[in-house]
């Protein structure tokens, strides 16, 4: 049976001198299998063309549509409206990122800076000769690397992190996961000493207060808790 749902969204344009942050309420008929992304699209098409929110893939792959729904950071495209028994969804943009407008935030530039900061690329002296077969890699090792490579950079771990909100320079779980990803990749010749230089400080691994909201909210269920603990043990063990 169809019901009417209520979506309340923060509207604010920080680039406008006349814009004041305020909540706007929209009421719409829920449809079968309705996701928040579908609901927002409907609102934009039928009620408020000015409402800004981010999306690309609609399938939980691009990581663009992260937002706070009733206080929880989620992907709008993977959030079913039927999972909210009272039919009320209160939307805020993800904190920690630069607000563009309404529910739209700039995760891209943040992720780009983070990637440069943790030098998120393979460091090797090895010259690739494409005429030769690649050296084989143990399947377990490859799986471990691919597992961490599933990160879609949605920023949910960053928005969920109380440490990051208090301390804007904190690298966040996404950055620490990236370091762990290269650490287990045999193609990368960096040593633990090298990784220490990237995240061995209070804005890096030692700033993490183990609040675990990153782990609990990651839409890709990455093993962030284990990997952060692993990197911490490795970096602390350095002499």
């Amino acid at each position, binding site marked *: 049976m169809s019901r009417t749902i209520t979506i309340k969204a923060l509207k604010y344009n920080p680039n406008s001198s006349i814009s004041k942050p305020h909540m706007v309420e929209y009421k719409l008929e829920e449809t079968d299998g309705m996701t928040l992304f579908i609901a927002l699209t409907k609102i934009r098409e039928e009620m408020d063309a000015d409402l800004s929110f981010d999306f690309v893939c609609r399938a939980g792959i691009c990581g663009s549509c992260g937002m*706070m729904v009733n*206080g*929880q950071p989620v992907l709008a495209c993977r959030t079913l409206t039927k999972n909210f028994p009272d039919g009320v969804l209160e939307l*805020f943009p993800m*904190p920690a990122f630069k607000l563009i407008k309404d529910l739209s935030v700039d995760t891209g530039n943040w992720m780009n800076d983070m990637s440069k900061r943790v030098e998120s690329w393979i460091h090797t002296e090895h010259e690739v000769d494409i005429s030769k077969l690649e050296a084989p890699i143990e399947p377990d090792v490859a799986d471990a690397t691919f597992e961490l490579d599933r990160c879609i950079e949605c920023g949910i771990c960053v928005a*969920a992190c*109380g440490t990051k*909100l*208090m*301390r804007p320079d904190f690298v966040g779980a996404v950055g620490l996961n990236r370091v762990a990803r290269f650490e287990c990749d045999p193609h990368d010749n960096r040593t633990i000493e090298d990784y*220490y*230089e990237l995240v*061995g*400080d*209070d804005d890096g691994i*030692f700033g*993490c*207060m*183990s*609040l*675990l*909201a990153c782990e*609990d909210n990651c839409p890709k269920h990455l*093993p962030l*808790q*284990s990997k952060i*603990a*692993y990197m*911490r*043990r490795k*970096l*602390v063990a*350095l002499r």
Partner: protein
Amino acid sequence: MSDLIEGFLGKSVEGKKSRLPAKLDFVQSATGLFLGLFMWGHMFFVSTILVSNDLMYNVTKMFEGGFFFEERQHWIDAVLIIFVLVVFFTHAGLGMRKFPINFRQWQVYKTHMKMMKHDETSMWYVQAITGFVMFFLGSAHLFIILLHVADIGPYLSGSRIYSLWPFYILLLLAVEFHGGIGLYRLCIKWGWFEGNNAKETRAKLKKVKWVITAFFLTLGILTFVAYFKIGLEQKDNAGERYQPSAMIKVIDNIKVGS
């Protein structure tokens, strides 16, 4: 000169980061672990009052070299207290680095916690508040004990709890919540007991954490009541030292402490 350059630039002359943050992180955890386990032991020792005054007296005596000396050696307690104080101050100093240090940090964390309703995020706030409370109450307790080290025993400890009961109730709550959450967080932080399924282990650890907190809170409250009762009964004889039953002789109906 190299220290000056490192302090100025934030990296050594070789362009390397200091290893001190790693050490500080480790020491914060190590001191926390020590204090957490120490408080478990402490609670078991003080709760011996629930069995009998004599047992509590004998445990106190044991810590004062009772196995080796006939007389109580209060200096042993004093050394232990000073050691705990040093560990306590170290832990507090290192823990303080994580506190919200300005209005905006406090505001954003509080809003986030209220919105997210996430266990570990809220537990950290409890830990920060109880840690702050213990800066004062924990230090005061240790100083009181250090200055009156000879007065540890059923009667004088009872009198202390009776006269300072609001202080000790607050301290008990702060210790049990801070310690319980802290030990749980240590396991998560370093990946202890993780096994093959970190999520499952964490759920179990959280359950164990609450069971332990409930156990120590119950034991703590019962112990508190026992000391309070002794303090209440002793209020007209304040300052009287406890004489263990084994040392009391009855001569011609006159009770004399030997």
